[in-house]
């Protein structure tokens, strides 16, 4: 559960931690949380990805916002902090469709696109997922306990579960 050692990672942001902090992406809907942790270096990071591709945005200065820039930035930042790319344990959560935008028949499934984009970038980097909790119609809060690497996901009306 959340503690006073919890650090919120807002939409479009990413964070790296060495300590016993808990990194938290609160209220993921169509956004995707990407958690990466090295069990040897005991360093972890969390990205709160909003959009699939930086090609459609106009804020390249915010690499955490886009799947194609957030994931490489996260991996590079962890490597600089002593992580080994081959040891990284990667887990993702989110990519739901909480709201059908534009009314019936005009749904923009941005969540699905975000999940697909994250998977594609991971493949390109030669990384695979250890666990995931994606899709559906409910919001999620994703927590990465940096000391242990444990990732928990909370959904409204359900008990928190470990990924």
């Amino acid at each position: 559960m959340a503690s006073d050692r919890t650090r919120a990672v807002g939409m479009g942001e990413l964070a790296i931690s060495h300590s016993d902090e808990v990194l938290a992406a609160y209220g993921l809907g169509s956004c995707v949380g990407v958690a990466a942790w090295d069990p040897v270096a005991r360093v972890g990071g969390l990205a709160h990805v909003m959009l699939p591709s930086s090609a459609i945005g106009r804020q390249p200065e915010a690499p955490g916002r886009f799947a194609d820039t957030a994931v490489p930035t996260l991996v590079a930042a962890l490597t600089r902090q002593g992580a080994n790319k081959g040891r990284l344990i990667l887990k993702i959560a989110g990519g739901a469709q909480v709201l059908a935008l534009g009314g019936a028949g005009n749904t923009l499934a941005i969540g699905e696109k975000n999940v697909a984009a994250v998977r594609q970038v991971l493949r390109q980097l030669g990384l695979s997922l250890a666990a995931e909790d994606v899709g559906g119609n409910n919001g999620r809060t994703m927590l990465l306990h940096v000391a242990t690497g444990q990732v928990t996901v909370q959904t409204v009306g359900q008990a928190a579960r470990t990924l």
Partner: protein
Amino acid sequence: MNDSKLATLCPVADAGFRRAGQGLSEMAGTDIAATATRIRRLPLAKVPDLLGGPGVVVATVYLAIKGDVEGHMVLMMPLSEACALADMLLELPSGSTRELDGLASSALGEVGNLVGSFFLAALADVTSLRLSPTPPTIIADMSGAVLDAVLADLSMESDQVLIIDTLFAQSSRRVSACFLVLPRERYLELILGRLPR
């Protein structure tokens, strides 16, 4: 959008909310007033902080804007306020509604429908634009999770949202909500260009 443009929107919001209040009063069979207490602008990503943070569950009514303008409208409030609003509309003693069940949820949807429809109608009156809402969608979920797809949809353009602080009042009861209006940026210019100076 500068402050004087925001000021020109105040009478539009007042007119729309007054009519929404009349509609709610007819629906409930008791006098209910809807008031726009403040209009301001904020980055959309900051909106969840107004309601306790992105992980906090809120009640939301969503309507899309169709016609000459494309965009989104969102009526959002804490769950406790939504339950109080349902009590007000259904003429139940305060504290009767404890969750957004079928009846409370459809009452909330009608509030969003009336506020959204009459706000758009008031805006259409002064801009001569053709504006209509889609039917309402009612959701109880984390505010961040409700709004992030809206933000993703708009982020190529503008992430600024127009927030109308809203107060519903009936006798001594008061319910506060946030009404968010998010036209696509190119349409925002169209609307502002047609507002009276």
